[in-house]
């Protein structure tokens, strides 16, 4: 049985093309992916991402419990702050990637990928045996709206937002009179907010944001543009670029892992060993040198030998070229500037390894 968000009727009324995504009926586009993409880069866009999971973790051992689950140091996470985390298995492979928010002294919000909620919950419950902790999946109670783009902050201020928030912070606030959790996070590489709202208010808030956003040329944005936006920002997509056989070190996420975390966590021995001694594969960005498009699963070659595989790829509307993320052999001869080939329909097409992100991120808001 395919699930619908509380905004399903709104999407249909807006003429969205609906697709099955991780068991959810979601809008992939309203008008045009490229147009929607540019709207988010230049103005402001509104996304329904209510399919994502919200798990509340609380109790006496909440910190110790979360610290066992993720490589990040939850003890150091301050009130109203957020941290990008991974959920490794015992071999360091990733069950999911998450954002964890600190809502109270012993209360945390974990946002997980729609496709992984069940796996995440199973894993959490299995790991909770020796901890005094409550794991509360409240995904069905909340809608999640993302307001993203350079005008997102200005728009929400006209709707009554008064909080001063730097990036990766969460507050309780009122927008158009509705009480929400609002965090300055997103999945586009732009400045913006994600708004967690009770389902009963979601349709009102959706309409109101589109209405008040008119003067900022707001558009509703589907999952198609969400994917091209995150790809330009080189943000990983679970299931494409991350999976249970890929460690965060291989995925280029070592920057997010503290080297001095003393407590043990699942997969720590593998992750720390890889940070010290390196990995056999690494994630790189590719820029195609002709018009061909590398897609998930295509093979990467150098000097006639296979060196890796593309995990995400598509057009970059901002750059006007085609880009991709790929896992390749980790050696010094394969680095930024190296020209490799991608096998596309039985022909090799040149691509250059480039630095990530492909498009400069503009979401580093400091007050």
């Amino acid at each position: 049985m395919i699930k619908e968000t509380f905004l399903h009727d709104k999407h249909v009324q807006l003429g969205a093309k609906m697709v099955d995504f991780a068991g959810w009926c979601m809008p992939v586009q309203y008008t045009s992916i490229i147009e929607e993409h540019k709207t988010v880069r230049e103005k402001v866009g509104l996304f329904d991402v209510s399919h994502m999971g919200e798990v509340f973790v609380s109790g006496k051992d909440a910190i110790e419990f979360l610290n066992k689950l993720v490589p990040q140091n939850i003890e150091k996470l301050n009130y109203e702050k957020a941290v990008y985390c991974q959920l490794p298995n015992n071999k360091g492979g990733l069950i999911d990637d998450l954002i964890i928010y600190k809502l109270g002294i012993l209360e945390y919000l974990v946002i997980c990928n729609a496709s992984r909620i069940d796996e995440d919950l199973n894993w959490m419950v299995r790991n909770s045996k020796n901890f005094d902790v409550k794991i509360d999946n409240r995904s069905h109670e909340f809608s999640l709206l993302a307001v993203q783009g350079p005008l997102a902050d200005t728009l929400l201020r006209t709707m009554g937002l008064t909080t001063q928030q730097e990036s990766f912070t969460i507050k309780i606030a009122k927008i158009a009179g509705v009480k929400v959790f609002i965090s300055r996070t997103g999945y586009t590489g732009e400045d913006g907010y994600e708004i967690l709202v009770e389902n009963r208010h979601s349709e009102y808030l959706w309409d109101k944001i589109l209405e008040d956003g008119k003067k900022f040329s707001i558009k509703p944005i589907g999952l198609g543009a969400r994917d091209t936006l995150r790809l330009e920002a080189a943000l990983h997509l679970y299931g494409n670029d991350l999976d249970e056989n890929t460690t965060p070190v291989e995925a280029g996420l070592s920057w997010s892992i503290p080297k001095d975390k003393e407590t043990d966590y699942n997969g720590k021995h593998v992750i720390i060993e890889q940070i010290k001694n390196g990995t056999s594969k690494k994630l790189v960005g590719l820029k195609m040198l002709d018009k061909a498009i590398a897609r998930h699963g295509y093979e990467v070659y150098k000097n006639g030998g296979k060196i890796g595989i593309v995990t995400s790829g598509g057009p970059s509307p901002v750059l006007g070229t085609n880009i991709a993320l790929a896992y390749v052999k980790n050696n010094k001869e394969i680095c930024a500037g190296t020209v490799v080939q991608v096998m596309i329909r039985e022909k090799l097409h040149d691509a250059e390894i480039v630095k990530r992100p492909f498009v400069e991120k503009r979401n580093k808001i400091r007050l």
Partner: protein
Amino acid sequence: MSITEKILCSKSHEFLLDNGDNTFTIGLTDYAVEQLGDIVFLELPETSTEFKKGETFATVESVKAASEIYMPVSGKILEINEDAVNSPEILNEDSYEKGWLVKIEATGDVQAEQGDLLEYEDYKEELE
């Protein structure tokens, strides 16, 4: 007579237009391009290549994915639409007159091969 009254459509969403001189124009239906969304890349075959009915002769890529395009009848490629290769977005504007893909000379029993193609009205009805 509008173009949709003259074409035949395949279930895989190609159209075939009889030019009346044993040549045919092939392209994608308006339904196909609408379903694909923004078209960003088009790969067409070399002229004088021959394909049998049902064979893949071209690839079209939308932002999301690559799709193969199949020959509605057997034929030899006489001409490809260079404008469509250079600006694939014209398929989204008009896939019939501006955004056609190839012109072919039929090489098989074209009457028999057209047997499973539908007139536009019937094709649209099938989709519903």
